[in-house]
């Protein structure tokens, strides 16, 4: 069963439409990257799926069930969202922050700490676990928040039916940690977690995603494999930028070079 199905979804949370006629299907283990210029509606789509506002029309289904009919706690066990910005300014330790990700589950402190250890290792934050969140750098905070949303959905073997929404998870990360994030995403996708993420670096988006969805002015203008979607014409039209698209030396994806 599809994890997520959107049929002709419109959303206008502040009066003007921000998303128009979005159709989308996401299977377990699939990774979909959202790209598009600033203000295209990428974050809005994630926030719509995170339940921050309701669709004005159309149907949104998570695992076959209308999104707004899910009981709160069960929904939180299946769907996690990493926002762009974190507002936390209270001195929790890193481990405490990540433990908060286990709030929807009642698995007990021992099991939770075990999961927390695994996600801390996956995000290279294990050495930070006893530090205070408020004393971390921007990149470290972003990895800790990522660990928190991973902990919310984490299962060592089967994560099918879960949906992870990531809004610019790499914005503050250095190159090594960007690559590590790619590994983590591939890893949880292999266990069945469906991932939707917004990334501005199109090459990173191409390397991590099975499929790209291109948004412009709230509408889906292209969708498909990175090879099919990333063309010089698209960049000219959407970003008003001239690019060269070459096969990547790794042979698995296209490589976009700005001119």
């Amino acid at each position, binding site marked *: 069963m599809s994890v997520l199905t959107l049929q002709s979804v419109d959303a206008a949370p502040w009066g003007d439409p921000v998303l128009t006629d979005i159709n989308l299907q996401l299977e377990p283990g699939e990774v979909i990257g959202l790209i598009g210029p600033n203000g295209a509606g990428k974050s809005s789509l994630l926030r719509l799926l995170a339940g921050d506002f309701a669709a004005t029309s159309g149907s949104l289904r998570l695992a076959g069930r209308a999104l707004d009919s899910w009981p709160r706690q069960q929904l939180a066990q299946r769907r996690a969202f990493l926002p762009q910005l974190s507002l936390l300014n209270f001195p929790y330790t890193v481990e405490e922050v990540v433990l908060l990700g286990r709030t929807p589950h009642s698995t007990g402190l021992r099991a939770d700490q075990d999961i927390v250890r695994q996600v801390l290792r996956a995000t290279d934050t294990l050495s930070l676990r006893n530090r205070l969140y408020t004393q971390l750098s921007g990149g470290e905070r972003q990895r800790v928040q990522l660990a*928190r949303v991973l902990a919310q959905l984490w299962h060592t073997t089967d994560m099918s039916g879960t949906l992870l929404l990531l809004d610019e998870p790499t914005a503050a990360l250095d190159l090594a940690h960007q690559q590590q994030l790619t590994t983590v995403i591939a890893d949880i996708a292999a266990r069945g977690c469906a991932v939707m993420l917004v990334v501005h670096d199109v090459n990173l988006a191409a390397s991590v995603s099975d499929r790209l969805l291109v948004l412009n002015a709230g509408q889906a203008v292209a969708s498909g494999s990175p090879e099919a979607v990333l063309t010089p014409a698209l960049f000219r039209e959407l970003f008003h930028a001239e690019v060269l698209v070459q096969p990547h030396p790794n042979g698995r994806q296209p490589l976009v070079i700005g001119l």
Partner: protein
Amino acid sequence: MITNVIHRRRRAQRLLLLLVIMLPLTMLLALGSGAVKIAPGDTLSALLGADRGQASLIVQQIRLPRVLLAAIIGATLAMSGAAMQGLFRNPLADPSLIGVTAGASLGASLLIVAGGSSLTGFMGLSLVSLAAFVGGVLAVLLVYRLASSDNGTSVATMLLAGIAITALAGAAGSLLEFFTDNERLRQISLWKMGGLDGATLPRLLLATVVAGSVLLVLPRYALPLNTLLLGESEARHLGIAVNRTKLALITWVAIGVGTSVALVGTIAFVGLVVPHIVRLLIGPDHRTLLPASALGGAILLVCADALSRTLLAPTELPVGIITALIGVPFFISLLRQRHHYGMQT
């Protein structure tokens, strides 16, 4: 500062235990202090009814209701403060921010100016207290209405609406004070300073029932408050019924603080300083922060009240002055080393 979760929780347990032991000791000392000094041993025997002399009369009839009232009010103010700071995600938030204190002051002033201060209400409560309670709760309702829209309640708007309503109530209060006569002006001013001298059995009973239920209910929101520190959307994504939680917290805090203002007037700093100090010591986990703040608030107010009775005995100082005088230097010293505890603001 390196802190393991388990160590932090153990430290929180130790602090709770320490406070649980300190509170009765503080209360015992407070029962013995005042215009007539009574040794702790004699206080204890007076309490247990072993001695039927003057000490027994003073301890049981006069000081016991007062010390108990101080403990309950202190606990309620501090726990309400902790809950408000969590809800507003701001360590400097205070229950008075949502308008309850200013509304209560205006309610009381209105009644005093209207000449109702000599009338008694029910259960030994003066009409002034009732007016203060009504004023406080009305102000909170108004602030809540102003900050609510179809999309829920904006905490930032509530803060601003709280400031606006506080200013408005303050202006209206000043206007009343400007036009009233000197005697009533002094009544208003004394009421505002707060005091526990009106501690009678009926008042204590009322405080126990109302504030006691606030003290029992607020800790049930510890986990939602923990997630709210991440942000409201984040709490919602973790499965918390955010709007219901906010409404419940605001309502209980309004009831608790409204009752305390109605009974003992405005007592500054307990709600602000105590949770802040506790958080610096054991971290922001509300499961321990809320009870530890309550105990700390009770201890602070019992101490402050004992000092207010002894410093210039037989004259009593308003207790709000003492809480500020004790709390503020301690607070400032902690603020100066706040980086040590990881506080940014």
